[in-house]
């Protein structure tokens, strides 16, 4: 079993935004890993490991489209426990999701992977597109926004729980397949692989890179491809029409009673 996990670097979402003309200025940004990709890597690692046992049930490969010398996020995921990396050396900021999906799909094909796991979105553009597009390009079944996942190795299938507006939808999809994960996939009991005891309690959230993992990360194999070598011409069919900061919110007020609140909602906010 080979699991490919997409990982992206993004400008630190906790930094305040700077604007340059009609764009967000990232020239002095700190680049960090997309949090949802951390959840994706955690999902793959939970699938691959057999707690209490040394055998690994899957190889976990992290794949990033990024300039090859800006790979710290890839190293971070190798330190967390992924087995190796694949970098597509390109300026991903100049590409649209379709191009990224094509590159990811091509890596998936060449590696002969069985499963693609992605974060449901990246926190910068919040596009929520790559996994679905890659599934389309690969013509594979998909389950997006996975909150729980059970790997049935006998049936070579995944059962995925998706939180939807009116409840939880449960889908069973055969492998090979594409899954995108939501935040709740890293709750202590969200991922089951049939090997680790079903009642094993993982710690809440993605695991931390251990000191040993950090030391080992640099020794792990990372292949670098160019888009051309993968037969993809980078392009973008998306044009940015404008970028503006959200309006500043006015200061709030603290009122001393429900009556005052109602009065203000009628007379000042005029919403009642």
């Amino acid at each position: 079993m080979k699991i490919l996990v997409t990982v992206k670097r993004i400008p630190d979402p906790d930094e305040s935004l700077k604007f340059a003309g009609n764009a967000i200025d990232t020239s002095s940004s700190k680049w960090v890993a997309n949090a949802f990709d951390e959840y994706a890597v955690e999902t793959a690692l939970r699938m691959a490991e057999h707690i209490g046992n040394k055998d690994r049930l899957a190889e976990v490969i992290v794949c990033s489209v990024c300039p090859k010398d800006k790979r710290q996020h890839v190293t971070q995921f190798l330190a967390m426990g992924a087995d190796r990396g694949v970098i597509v050396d390109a300026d991903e900021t100049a590409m649209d999701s379709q191009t990224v999906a094509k590159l990811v799909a091509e890596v998936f094909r060449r590696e002969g992977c069985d499963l693609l796991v992605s974060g449901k979105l990246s926190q910068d553009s919040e596009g929520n597109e790559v996994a679905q597009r890659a599934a389309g390009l690969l013509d594979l079944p998909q389950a997006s926004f996975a909150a729980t996942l059970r790997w049935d190795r006998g049936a070579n299938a995944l059962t995925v729980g998706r939180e939807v507006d009116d409840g939880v939808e449960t889908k069973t999809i055969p492998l090979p397949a594409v899954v995108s994960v939501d935040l709740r996939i890293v709750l202590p009991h969200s991922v089951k692989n049939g090997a680790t005891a079903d009642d094993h309690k993982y710690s809440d959230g993605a695991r931390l890179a251990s000191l040993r993992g950090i030391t080992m990360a640099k020794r792990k194999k990372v292949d670098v491809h160019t888009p051309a070598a993968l037969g993809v011409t980078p392009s973008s069919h998306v044009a940015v029409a404008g970028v503006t900061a959200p309006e500043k919110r006015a200061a709030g007020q603290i009122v001393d009673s429900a009556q005052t609140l109602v009065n203000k909602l009628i007379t000042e906010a005029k919403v009642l």
Partner: protein
Amino acid sequence: MGARCYHRFVPAPRSPYYTEDHEALRSTVRRFVEREVVPHIDQWERDGALPRALYLAAGEIGLLGLGFPEEYGGTPGDQFAQFVATEELCRAGSGGLVASLMSHGIGMPPVARLGSPQLKAQVLPPVLRGEKIAALAITEPSGGSDVANLRTRARLDGDHWVVDGSKTLITSGMQADYITTAVRTGGEGMEGVSLLVIPGDAPGLSRTPLQKMGWWCSDTATLYFEDCRVPVGNLVGMVNQGFAAIMSNFNGERLGIAAVAIGMAQVCYDEAVAYARQRETFGRPLITRQVIRHKLVDMAQDIGATRAYLEAIAWRVDRGQWPIAEVCMLKNQATQCLEHCAKEAVQILGGAGYVLGAKVERIYRETKVLSIGGGAEEIMKDLASRQLGL
């Protein structure tokens, strides 16, 4: 855990000392502190001890193994790695956390350096995994500065050492499973001192807790040894050769104390800046007052100079030197820096800085232990002056 995660991978700063690996370590320890420590630290301070589960969690990410040999479950790391880890632990604003969670950092280096292979294999792996807690016991009720004249005795009886005496002010003393203890095995003075790893369940060992000004979540104890029997194999290094081991262990401890002082001074600065930005007096934020800004600049200047001093010494230590006078002066420089920054931070927070729950209130109570423990300020000056040939 929230949809917007605040833990972050910090890119390597432009500095000759720090690599990407240091920043990866920083990120791991920062997140560990945010997840495992910050939500509970106030409770642990009230409890007067850290839970054993915390040691296990720290063992799991390899934090307890930092700087110890790989064959016993450690991860080699240079002085800068130690500094980064300490600085990040300090962000929880509790010196007691650093003191007790990392008490093996003073208790175990003599074992790793001088212990027999059997002793190392027995003691180090469970300590580095966080299953066992380690402590160092030098200080006695009769005095801590004058190590050469310690009184706790150990005499050989068959295949056991029999220990009589007491130790006090021992960090992690209530919980420790392995206590690296300085004992008199020979005649008077420094030539009669040995180091012995006393198991926490050794017959004849009893302990009582000490209530302190600060470091509340660190369990400090007085230990009593009455015909306490310890297997001969628990001797660390050669008999009557313990004094040099204790002295060289102090170097690492003093560098560590300097790191804690700098980490805590930085927290004081950060807290004071945040408060001064948000607090308004006479219609304006405090930070707009020149008096306040100058206080903050003085703090930043002190921290910057002290950090640079530590880094310069750490660089030399990583190259095999132990500049003893500099380490002594650094310890004093750093603890004075902290006394300065803690005092000003509490002042800037005003009454809010005096109320339990403010980080700076706790840190203010923790300044003195750093200028007394691990070699008091006066002792540091004496040692430095001898080393400088004055």
